């Protein structure tokens, strides 16, 4: 079982397909859960403490906007943990923690420079593309075993 990071990191379709095919999807909600449901909430409401910006600084310089560093504090550690990646190009409707384009550029760059197996895809627009989408993901994940 490989740890596969998906981009967008909040994607339901990608994380479901990875889990369904027997691998572990690395997604942001899992990281958020660790913070938000910690028994010792040091900094309510979201438990973002002074440690989070420090984590973010490992991936982005101090003069980079704080939003990017904050997002990287969540996404950076899962990039470090990843053994493979599935990237969907230009979804066109990223929101929430995946809604910052500069962060997304940095995330894609870090994944690509990590030297792990990467599958590049686009979201499907019709049934034939959807079949191709699912088959490519299955083949990629089978090859990881």
């Amino acid at each position, binding site marked *: 079982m490989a740890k596969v990071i998906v981009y967008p990191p909040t*994607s339901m379709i990608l994380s*479901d397909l990875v889990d369904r095919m027997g691998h572990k999807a690395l997604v942001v909600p899992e990281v958020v859960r660790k913070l938000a449901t910690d028994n010792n909430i040091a900094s309510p409401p979201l438990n973002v403490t002074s440690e989070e910006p420090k984590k973010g600084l490992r991936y982005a310089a101090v003069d980079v906007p704080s939003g990017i560093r904050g997002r990287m504090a969540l996404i950076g550690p899962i990039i470090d943990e990843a053994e493979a990646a599935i990237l969907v190009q230009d979804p066109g409707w990223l929101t929430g923690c995946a809604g910052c384009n500069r962060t997304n550029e940095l995330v894609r760059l870090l994944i690509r420079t990590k030297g792990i197996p990467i599958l590049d895809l686009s979201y499907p627009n019709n049934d034939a593309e959807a079949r191709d989408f699912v088959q490519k993901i299955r083949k990629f994940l089978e090859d990881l075993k």
Partner: protein
Amino acid sequence: MLVTKYIIMSSESNILPSDIAMKIYGSGYDVLVKETCFGVIINGEKEVVEALIKEIRSLDPSGIFIKDRGFPPGDPRRCRGRRGGGARPGFYMIESESKLLPMISRALASEGESGPIVKEKARPLPLKRLEEIVNEG
């Protein structure tokens, strides 16, 4: 460790969120269930939730999708009832991807019918080609 998962149905699935909620109530698992317009949110111990998800998936293997959620159901930091209305942050992503679910669902179903891609078996090197390689050397 407590985990929270979304169970989201493709719009073409015959399963309704209420069917899933009733299945969970009937299963006797110790989990918290919240029914929503697009599916169900469940919260419980990781092992219990994973076992339950396997059962729920079997209702419609290609039409039910699972997503992780960071906050527990009804959490005041996310619940719109406590934040003055409007969609919960993160709903927009689910809404956008939900439009693709029928296509993905049909693709998974057709794959199930035709079976997964069969890998091409590795064949031994033909004798003729081996001779050519030897002669090249």
